[in-house]
């Protein structure tokens, strides 16, 4: 499995790298202005428009490139928010007294049982549909999963003799957390966060597909899919292209997560 794992890691890095490269390029160069509709509606691929245009006449490649940026920001932002909130809550629960720990665990289970889409709709109802709202909703939902994992990992580490030994040698709690707890839970957390990144990208696409993501003219892949739905038989590229890019990014992220898991210390023992 190890050989396959490192090949998978390499393949995953290539796939994620492609999307990342496209997103970076989109910051400095785009084939057309995203609002440019001069090319005519539903132009087929080839010629001046490499992938054709959509039903409003906008260049599809331009939209996809901007979409890569949105997908990465949504995924990365959600993981950052969910990771920070989740690890802090998980640490608190892991160290808490029994009743507080029970209360936190119950709250986390309730939050995890709550569908992400429903939570997102609530957030959008309170705020407006935007990239920030999507990140907030996805990040909050993710933080519960991360917190539950962190809590269990912290408890497992705290039960080890080396923690007792560190306390016996007079280490304070902040030092023990920094030197022993975080390094020991970090590998597992990192793999989980990588998996969560893939899920977050999919979640943002779903929200955008439902119109709960960043509003037009921000071309999220999910919204491109939604807009291409009506013309899928006459102009299939408009639906296929964002779908393929989503698959590339999510599969790439998952391969990276798998590869990281195989590399994580402690697995080889």
């Amino acid at each position, binding site marked *: 499995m190890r050989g396959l794992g490192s090949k998978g890691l390499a393949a995953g890095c290539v796939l994620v790298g492609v999307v990342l490269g496209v997103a970076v390029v989109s910051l400095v160069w785009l084939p057309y202005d995203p609002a440019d509709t001069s090319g005519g509606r539903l132009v087929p691929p080839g010629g001046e428009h490499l992938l054709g245009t959509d039903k409003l006449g906008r260049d599809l490649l331009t939209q996809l490139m901007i979409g890569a940026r949105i997908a990465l920001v949504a995924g990365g932002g959600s993981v950052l928010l969910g990771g920070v909130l989740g690890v802090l809550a998980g640490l608190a629960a892991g*160290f*808490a*007294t*029994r009743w507080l720990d029970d209360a936190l665990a119950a709250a986390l289970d309730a939050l995890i049982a709550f569908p992400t889409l429903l939570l997102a709709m609530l957030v959008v109802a309170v705020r407006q549909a935007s990239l920030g709202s999507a990140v907030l909703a996805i990040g909050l939902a993710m933080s519960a999963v991360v917190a539950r994992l962190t809590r269990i990992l912290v*408890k497992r*580490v*705290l*039960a*080890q*003799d*080396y*923690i*007792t*030994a*560190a*306390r*016996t*040698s*007079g*280490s*304070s*709690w902040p030092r023990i957390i920094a*030197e*022993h707890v975080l*390094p*020991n839970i970090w590998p597992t957390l990192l793999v989980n966060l990588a998996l969560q990144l893939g899920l977050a990208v999919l979640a943002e696409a779903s929200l955008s597909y439902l119109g709960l993501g960043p509003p037009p003219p921000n071309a999220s892949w999910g919204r491109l899919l939604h807009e291409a739905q009506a013309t899928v038989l006459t102009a299939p590229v408009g639906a296929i292209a964002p779908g393929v890019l989503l698959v590339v990014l999510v599969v790439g992220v998952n391969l990276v997560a798998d590869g990281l898991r195989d590399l994580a*210390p*402690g697995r080889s*023992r």
Partner: protein
Amino acid sequence: MTGEKPMVPDRSPAPGIPAEPAALLDVDGLSVRRADGHELLRGVSFTLAPGERLGLIGESGSGKSLTALAVLGLLPAGLSAHGSVLLAGTQIVGARDRRLDRVRGRTVSAVFQEPLTALDPLMRIGRQLAGPIRRRRGLRGAALRAAVSTALDEVRLPERVAGAYPHEISGGQRQRAALAMALACEPDLLIADEPTTALDVTVQAEVLALLNGLVSGRSMALLLIGHDLAVVADVTDRLAVLERGSLVETGRAEDIVREPRHPYTRALVESAEAFEAEFDRLAP
């Protein structure tokens, strides 16, 4: 079992009765209770003078390790200590973490049973050793590295072990590294909780001899916990016998081995003798 919690619900500190200067450790009427009131340790009292070696023996579940944890102020959550544990004049029972952190690693340190989990799996041995040395002696840089290799040398570990992770060295080496960590703090009292139980017999003898030599070389007091009467009596001056949470007999090691008074101690001695006899019969 969950880990130790930062906030141990304990009583407020008992009034600071100054210890008699003779005793390094003065345990008086120590009881440990579960949250439901069940007593796991009942009124245990003993003292330990500086440089003295006391063996605490009893079978599994008799409260040996609990006694050690109570002395260190490290009882698991849900257990509470009552009575008095004076360690170099500091009351441990009910003390706050901040005060305990000052006592632990200076006055007292400990080695535990399981060498596999006693070391952080993701930290090189050298760095783990450096932590207590830096805190205790304030060494940095080259002086710290020199102190680490001296500490490894004292427990007869080659210097390359400093760069190894715990899974790269054997169980006996790990236990010696744990011993080096405990000794690096230069404590007045070393608590060794079944330090050789998880090791095989030949390694056990080595580690025990090493422990013995290092403790006597530093005139350190030793609280050695074990269930093997022969092993413990060999290293210690005095013995205390625990049975189901109560201290049933204390006295000089050779007296107890020669004429045990309590029936439980007698049973321990007889089983040790039966083992010896069987051993002699098989290998005369």
